[in-house]
């Protein structure tokens, strides 16, 4: 390849052909233009005339120059000139192309693949073997160099991953190098510790070029629940100017569809890497949130999944002591409030009100009995999955509840009176708690020494008692009993919720026990100890693009790995489910920061932008052809062939050769407006399907002619309307044949159409499929019509009622056929309060014109006439078919009358009343 600056030639030897140009010059110069032989009777008069000038037997210099240029262009063209040739790096050894392939690459991954493709093209041209890999998906057995064009075929397999390169894998990768090679490294631009080692290893094998574009990467950190609000933070790199980045909370709406539930904005101050924002949401909404994401950013770091940590349980607190004057510390609910407030939403109120809110947990503190209907309602709530947590107290101890037989709202039968130990009036020491059983929900909790119980209610010994006890005192008396009822459970703590009977509410154990009972949820990230020995199943995993995919095919993950949070192929970011809770594993951690990648000075860094090679061969050959065409004209002119008997034919041929430009659609907007408004003009929507458009135009022509002949409406020739560009307001009526190929209108076109419909225009939608489909059935056209009409301002529809004004605006009609005769023609529905008066054949219907008429009768074909006024399409068969066509025309006339006169005919029913009032 020979190159001059940005220009290079693929086959430079052909340029030697330029040396032949002077010879060609001489040759061409020596050959005069060939004479024309002409029959001419006047030759008798010419005999004896001598030429005054005689130099025209040589080709003029400018024509020679033209030809030389043309030949030179051909030679240059075939020499394969290329603009911006991709030859910046030299080298002939193997080429390794490395992309980071992290989530940060996902945003512009196609551009990176393009860049790699360009590199491979170049390697193919240079005959270099190549290998391509991403650092997140390294080949397990080292790199193998293959011919570059073979490697290029595997490019579509290259995908970014949602994690960062794993240091150990990089180590084995580097250790497996056995040859020298050059490296092109497409960096994602983020700082990473593993870079330096890899760079050293690569540099030891050959030249390394880094491709990196400066751009801002934003990552959103996991959401936390702080002080009743959801705290969100995001970090960015490189730190730059102030920026506002919106974030949206996504979750399921009540209908089960995923949608954006709330939005907030991260405001990055200038020079700040971290921005924070907070979202205050009602608990119902907050509990629906499944993830937060930065809209429009395709990156796993732009999404953070939420798990149970963000969900807050609704806990209803009901105390047996009404509004009692006393110290807060004696309030049975005081400790509960203190324990639950940070992690749950508390509800107060009466049982009926509380049940309406459907809380997760109802806590009854020393409530002996509930009202009859209340207890039934609570029981059914428990059976549907509620959790009833009861605390004992003097009232419960004193009541008769659950003495004789078990109360369904108590897990055990109770013995009368309870007991007290270790008090002033009793023997013995206050009792401590026994260690929790392994199968108890409290298993593993440490029991502080100072937790003692002075008094408690006692459970009646019972064969089923043992399995219902989940915590007991050191002497074996039950402290917490539980019974599963339906889908829910009833739990009784045999002491009070305040410190009156025991010191349990004062201890941290109380809070942990509530947590274990899932009364409250933990806000803290689960610790390694918490998760030790557990296995978590990935439910959904996140791709590098930030999209969620089903993770059920992936193996389970040990709890320790989740606790460590080291994201990699084994622990992909996503949502993991355990026994009774979910854990979200996100790309960004609470303390994650992003930094720009820093490269040592000896590494060449290039931008990602590709200056595509521009082969100039085509241009040069076109230039040569153009020059030769000019030469043809000039030669003809010189030889006198441009004048004379066949000059017009020559000119036509020349025009045909030279006219490459399409005739532009030269209708200006003003012409269009004048055409459309100087007369009534029917119009159809240009669907882009030429036969359909022609038929629609012919149909409207036929309808216009019929209107002209039969009525006082005298329309001008119909027009086709492009809803994207043309003004619609000029047309009272649009015919819209639906073709499946028509693209959906743009947003602006929809706005225009809606304005048109609101402004009194009418659109006749014609799916043209009434022969094969009924309205509403899913024919392709019907579906497309639905897709089109989804964003249109179409009112409620009904099939044309018998007394619709369309049945009598000009002709009396009871059917509305086109080429097909289906009765499914829909118009705006009548108001529900329309009433039929005595003696009046029609209902007193609404004002105005129906904005749409929808059907599939293919009216245009029934109306269509060709240039000679002949019907273009047959309708039906024989006489009855002609009758149907006539009715079709009558429908058209009625329709246009309806458009232009509105409900005039409908108002006619009032004429007798008006005359009556006028005293006639």
């Amino acid at each position, binding site marked *: 390849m020979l190159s001059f600056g940005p220009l290079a030639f693929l086959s430079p030897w052909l340029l030697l052909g330029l040396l032949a140009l002077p010879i060609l010059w001489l040759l061409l110069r020596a050959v005069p233009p060939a004479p024309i*032989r*002409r029959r001419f*009777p*006047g030759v008798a008069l*010419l005999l004896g005339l001598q*030429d005054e000038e005689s130099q025209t037997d040589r080709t003029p210099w400018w024509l020679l120059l033209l030809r030389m240029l043309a030949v030179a262009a051909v030679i240059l063209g075939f020499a394969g000139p290329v603009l911006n040739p991709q030859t910046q790096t030299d080298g002939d050894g193997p080429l390794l192309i490395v992309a980071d392939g992290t989530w940060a690459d996902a945003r512009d991954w196609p551009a990176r693949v393009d860049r790699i493709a360009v590199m491979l093209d170049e390697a193919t041209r240079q005959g270099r073997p190549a290998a391509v890999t991403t650092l997140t998906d390294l080949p397990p057995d080292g790199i193998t160099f293959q011919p570059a064009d073979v490697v290029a075929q595997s490019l579509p397999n290259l995908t970014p991953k949602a994690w960062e390169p794993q240091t150990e894998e990089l180590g084995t990768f580097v250790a497996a190098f056995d040859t020298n090679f050059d490296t092109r490294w497409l960096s994602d631009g983020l700082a990473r510790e593993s870079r330096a080692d890899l760079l050293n290893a690569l540099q030891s094998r050959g030249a390394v070029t880094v491709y990196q574009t400066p751009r801002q990467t934003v990552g959103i950190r996991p959401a936390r629940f702080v002080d009743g609000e959801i705290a969100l933070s995001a970090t960015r790199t490189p730190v730059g100017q102030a920026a506002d980045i919106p974030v949206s909370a996504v979750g399921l709406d009540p209908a089960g569809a995923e949608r954006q539930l709330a939005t907030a904005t991260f405001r990055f101050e200038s020079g700040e890497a971290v921005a924070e924002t907070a979202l205050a949401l009602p608990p119902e909404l907050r509990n629906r949130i499944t993830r937060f994401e930065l809209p429009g950013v395709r990156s796993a770091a732009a999404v953070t999944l939420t798990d149970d940590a963000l969900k807050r349980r609704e806990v209803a607190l009901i105390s047996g002591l009404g509004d009692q004057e006393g110290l807060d510390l004696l309030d049975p609910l005081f400790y509960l409030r203190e324990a639950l407030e940070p992690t749950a939403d508390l509800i107060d109120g009466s049982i009926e009100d509380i049940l309406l809110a459907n809380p997760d947990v109802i806590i009854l503190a020393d409530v002996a009995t509930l009202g009859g209907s209340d207890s039934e309602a609570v029981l059914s709530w428990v059976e549907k999955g509620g959790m009833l947590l009861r605390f004992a107290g003097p009232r419960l101890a004193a009541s008769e509840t659950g003495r004789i037989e078990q109360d369904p709202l108590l897990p055990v039968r109770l013995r009368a009176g309870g007991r007290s130990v270790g008090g002033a009036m009793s023997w013995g020491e206050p009792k401590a708690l026994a260690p929790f059983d392994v199968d108890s929900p409290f298993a593993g909790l440490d029991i502080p020494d100072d937790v003692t119980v002075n008094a408690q209610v006692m459970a009646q010994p019972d064969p089923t008692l043992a399995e219902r006890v989940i915590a007991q005192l050191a002497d074996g008396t039950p402290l917490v009993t539980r019974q599963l009822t339906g889908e829910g459970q009833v739990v009784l703590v045999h002491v009070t919720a305040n410190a009156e009977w025991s010191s349990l509410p004062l201890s941290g154990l109380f809070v942990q026990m509530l947590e274990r009972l899932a009364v409250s949820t933990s806000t803290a990230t689960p610790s390694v100890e918490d998760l030790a020995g557990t296995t978590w199943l990935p439910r959904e995993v996140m791709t590098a693009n930030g999209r969620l995919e089903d993770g059920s095919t992936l193996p389970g993950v040990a709890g320790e790995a989740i606790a460590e949070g080291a994201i990699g192929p084994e622990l992909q970011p996503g949502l993991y489910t355990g026994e009774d809770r979910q854990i979200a594993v996100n790309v960004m951690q609470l303390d994650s920061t992003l930094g720009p990648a820093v490269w040592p000075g000896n590494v060449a860094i290039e931008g990602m932008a590709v200056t595509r090679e521009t082969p100039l061969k085509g241009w040069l050959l076109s230039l040569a052809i153009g020059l030769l065409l000019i030469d043809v004209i000039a030669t003809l002119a010189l030889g006198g062939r441009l004048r004379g008997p066949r000059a017009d034919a020559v000119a036509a041929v020349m025009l045909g050769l030279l006219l490459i430009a399409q005739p532009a659609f030269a209708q200006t907007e003003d012409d269009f407006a004048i055409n459309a408004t100087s007369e009534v003009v029917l119009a159809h929507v240009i669907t882009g399907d030429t036969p359909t458009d022609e038929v629609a135009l012919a149909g409207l022509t036929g309808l216009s002619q019929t209107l002209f002949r039969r009525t006082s409406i005298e329309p001008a020739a119909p027009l086709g309307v492009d809803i994207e560009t043309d003004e619609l307001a000029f047309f009272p009526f649009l015919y819209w044949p639906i073709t499946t190929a028509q693209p959906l209108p743009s947003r602006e076109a929809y706005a225009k159409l809606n304005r048109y419909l609101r402004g009194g225009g009418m659109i006749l939608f014609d799916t043209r499929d009434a022969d094969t489909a009924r309205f509403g059935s899913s024919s392709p056209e019907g579906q497309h019509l639905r897709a089109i009409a989804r964003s249109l301002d179409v009112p409620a529809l009904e099939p044309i009622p018998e007394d619709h004004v369309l049945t009598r605006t000009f002709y009396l009609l009871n059917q509305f056929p086109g080429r097909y005769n289906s009765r499914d023609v829909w118009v705006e529905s009548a108001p529900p309060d329309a009433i039929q008066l005595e003696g009046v054949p029609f209902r007193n219907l609404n004002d105005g014109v129906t904005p749409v008429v929808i059907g599939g009768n293919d009216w245009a074909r029934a109306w269509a006439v060709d240039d000679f006024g002949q019907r273009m399409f047959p309708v039906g068969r024989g006489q009855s078919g002609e009758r149907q066509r006539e009715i079709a025309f009558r429908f058209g006339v009625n329709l246009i009358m309806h458009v232009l006169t509105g409900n005039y005919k409908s108002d006619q029913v009032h004429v007798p009343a008006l005359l009556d009032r006028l005293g006639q």
Partner: protein
Amino acid sequence: MSIPLTLRSAAEDLAAPLPPLLAEAEHLAATVLLGDHGRRRAGTGDTFWQYRPAQPGDSARSIDWRRSARSESNFVQDKEWQIAQSILLWVDDAASMQFTSTDNLQTKGYRARLLGLAVAVLLVRGGERVGLTGLRLPPKRGQQQLERMAVILSEDSDRDYGAPEAQGMLPHSRALFISDFLGDITPTRDALLRAADRGVRGAILQILDPQEEAFPFDGRTIFQSMTGAVEHETLKAGDLKARYLDRLAARKAELSDLARLTGWQFHTHHTHTAANAALLWVYGALERQT
């Protein structure tokens, strides 16, 4: 059996152009209203010329009694003298007449025959005797003469340029020469002078193609006559234009002078203009009393 058949088909091929030519000629002739065609003197004829007092020798039958009743003397109604004249046509049939510059235009020869035949139709309708110069078709009247004339006019000659035949011209008859007069002028001059010697008056109609008037040529060109017998090569045809036009004008002037000398009329007609104008001119020229 085959000979009569081939003969007949050849004859039909030959005759095929005739009806259209004749029909077109009659169509063209129909555009001319026959005007006053009398001799402007009393004689035998159909139309009224004058009343004159009856003279001895006038038969009683010739007395116009209606006129005589209005006065003392008797009057005789004289009719205008109507006498048929012999008119001889020469239409150039040479190869040069077959030239046309574009397909849209008629050839000069076709236009010449059309005009000749149309004049003949008019004249026959006016009661004159029409014939062709040379001895092939002596002047006669009637439809049959027209058909015969059409047959003879359809023949083509393979000479490059035609020359008028002055034979068979009756004394004091009239003649019409139609040609492009691009060839040698001498035979034309001779024929005209001989005709003038015999008291024949008439008209010369020169028919030219527009290209022959415009000479729109340029570049290196070899001009050939229609048969290819005459050639002239030029390297720059555009330069010849002025000189060619000069020569053409000289030719026209020469013809015009010749006509003035012999008492004939001269006119140049171009094939891209309407034929009626030429027909009117020819008709008027032949009618002219000189």
